[in-house]
């Protein structure tokens, strides 16, 4: 049993263009594809994460790359992409790399807007679903529990989440500076990214009257619109919508500008120059920066907002670096734990632990006992060691035999926890 059995396969906003991501995204219900993955040959456990910016499968398998190929075929089954193309748009991590990747995703280091808090909730939801369908077992359970712990550590020990939350807060403050009271205003979400959702959530909290969602795929627009009791429109309708809304949040991930200055100018005339606040959180940019020159139009991109909240780039880089350190440290610890999950090293560790205990206790006792002959001392030592060995006999049998309804990993983990072989000092693993 080795760490290589944890695998991560997927694609995100950096590797695959939005057109590909959207073909793949399982927006409604992940149960069906999850069960299909679970049924694959050589897949022992699996979990499927699908968000606006990423689709990922985490699984446990002994067959490595072969299982990954099967999973990739299944993910791309609904598209017309060739196998080679599918390979180009996905990444595949094994073992320690897969663990590290998951920890980075959970800690929001892999997000479009680093530090955005939505991803953790989405990951927890994916984990819940996998648990519900019994797709995640002992190893993924432990892995994800750890990932949530890492995310929490990163969030409390670094200021990485600060900027994302303060960015959407700053967007709301700016909207109020420009538009006054936000009650009765309309907001248009173009594209459906996590950060846009977060900003929209903040805005809705301020009494926004209507949320309109425009997206390349209409279905996803509907899903998101339902969350805010809003309305979905096709992306072609963008210009028409621009006449009616007051705030636009764009995060499409399109390769070029979706809106230019020359397109906005005539709209402003039709709007009778009512002010328009545009927020561009896409990377690369969705909105032509020169739009800001149009009278009564205010365009802010993610860097502008960061500047507003005065989180300097240096601070952000520092927070990200600190977070990467935590991730690396926790991934290494998890790797050690994973490596220990084998019968032979566990038995050795158990013996070592018992011998050390014997020696320590004997040393204490001998110090108090005067006048013992060497032979007596020998007898006491043998007594101690044989009690310890007898005590270990049944735990060792328990480890070696599978006849008690628990699989090997669970039994190993159980014994290691009982005897504190990972030297956690008795602390419980973090559960969220």
């Amino acid at each position, binding site marked *: 049993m080795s760490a290589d059995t944890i695998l991560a396969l997927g694609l995100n906003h950096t590797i695959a263009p939005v057109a590909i991501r959207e073909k793949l995204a399982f927006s409604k219900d992940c149960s069906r594809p999850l069960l299909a993955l679970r049924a694959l040959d050589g897949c022992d456990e699996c979990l499927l994460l699908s968000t606006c910016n990423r689709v990922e499968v985490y699984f446990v398998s002994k067959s490595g790359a072969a299982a990954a190929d099967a999973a990739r075929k299944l993910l791309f089954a609904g598209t017309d992409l060739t196998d080679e193309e599918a390979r180009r748009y996905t990444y595949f991590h094994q073992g320690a790399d897969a663990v590290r990747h998951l920890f980075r995703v959970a800690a929001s280091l892999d997000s479009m807007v680093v530090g955005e808090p939505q991803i953790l909730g989405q990951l927890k939801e994916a984990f819940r679903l996998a648990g519900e369908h019994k797709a995640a077992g002992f190893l993924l359970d432990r892995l994800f529990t750890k990932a949530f712990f890492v995310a929490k550590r990163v969030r409390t020990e670094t200021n990485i989440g600060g900027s994302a939350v303060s960015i959407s807060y700053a967007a709301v403050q*700016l909207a*109020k*500076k*420009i*538009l*006054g*009271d936000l009650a009765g205003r309309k907001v248009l979400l173009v594209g459906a990214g996590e950060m846009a959702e977060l900003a929209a959530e903040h805005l809705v909290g301020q009494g926004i009257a209507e949320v309109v969602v425009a997206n390349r795929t209409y279905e996803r627009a509907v899903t998101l619109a339902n969350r805010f009791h809003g309305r979905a429109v096709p992306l072609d309708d963008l210009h028409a919508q621009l006449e009616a809304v007051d705030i636009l949040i764009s995060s499409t991930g399109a390769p070029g500008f979706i809106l230019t200055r020359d397109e906005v100018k005539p709209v402003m*005339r039709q*709007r*009778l*120059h*009512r*002010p328009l606040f545009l927020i561009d959180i896409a990377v690369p940019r969705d909105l032509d920066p020169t739009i*800001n020159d149009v*009278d*009564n139009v*205010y365009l*802010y991109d993610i860097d*502008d907002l960061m*500047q*507003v909240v005065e989180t300097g780039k240096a601070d952000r880089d520092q927070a990200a670096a600190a977070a990467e350190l935590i991730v690396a440290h926790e991934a290494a610890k998890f790797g050690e734990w994973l490596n220990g999950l084998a019968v032979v090293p566990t038995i050795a560790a158990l013996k070592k632990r018992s011998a050390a205990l014997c020696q320590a206790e004997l040393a204490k006792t001998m110090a108090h006992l005067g006048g013992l002959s060497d032979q007596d001392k020998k007898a006491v030592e043998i007594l101690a060691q044989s009690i310890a060995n007898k005590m270990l006999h049944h735990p060792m049998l328990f480890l070696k035999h599978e006849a008690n309804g628990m699989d090997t990993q669970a039994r190993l983990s159980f014994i290691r926890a009982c005897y504190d072989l990972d030297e956690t000092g008795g602390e419980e693993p973090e559960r969220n």
Partner: protein
Amino acid sequence: MTYLFISTLGIYVAATVTALAYFTTQQEKLRGLGRLLLIAAGLAHTCYLVTRYLQAGHTPLTSNHDAVSFMAWAMTWGFLSFRYRYKVKNFGAFVTPLITLLMVVATLSSTTVRELPPALQSGWLPVHASIALLANSFLALAFCGGIMYLLLEGEIKKKRFGLFCERLPSLEALDNLNEHCLAVGFPLLTLGIITGSLWAKQAWGSYWHWDPKETWSLITWFLYAALLHQRFTMGWRRRRAAIMAIVGFAAALFTFWGVSFLLEGVHSYVG
């Protein structure tokens, strides 16, 4: 120069200093204090206007001193009346210095009460002059709002937040202020021109003489009329409205002072 006038000026200066201190420090205590001081100044100023009336024996609006003082008085009460309609944060920091400036101009002008020429001794005098000055005071308030709008908008457009972003109300509030001031100021301006014309008919026998003051008041009127017309039909609001409020007030000021001092005409007795 009476003690009453000097003490009124003193309270105005105190109110201005407090408003500016509130602007810089953002301490709520100062906000309330500034308002109280301005109300006190307004009351003292009202008493002063009454003494001027008694002293002159007619409505005291014929000298530069009285006209400017009346305009400052009207701005004070116009500004205070807003407090009950909207909250426009730090509006006082822009309005009170202007009021104080007007009071300083009044201080520097001669307070001698001159006898009016018989032609001008008419019931139209208080009506025409006070309406025209009231109009000017509301246009002045719109001007202050316009300055605030441009300062704040500049920071938001350039994405560099300095003094104004946290201290000024929203652009929307400032634009509403502009609309409100003009909604009061423009009808008053119109009325001022009409009453002036009626008075001219009575004094000189015809409604319009194309005297420089009349011409310039008409220019000012057209500027504001254009602004309001565009606002309601073409949506000239916000930035353009703010700029127009500033340009329009410059024209109004020129009508008020520039014409009197620089150009000759039937109004030249003022000043």
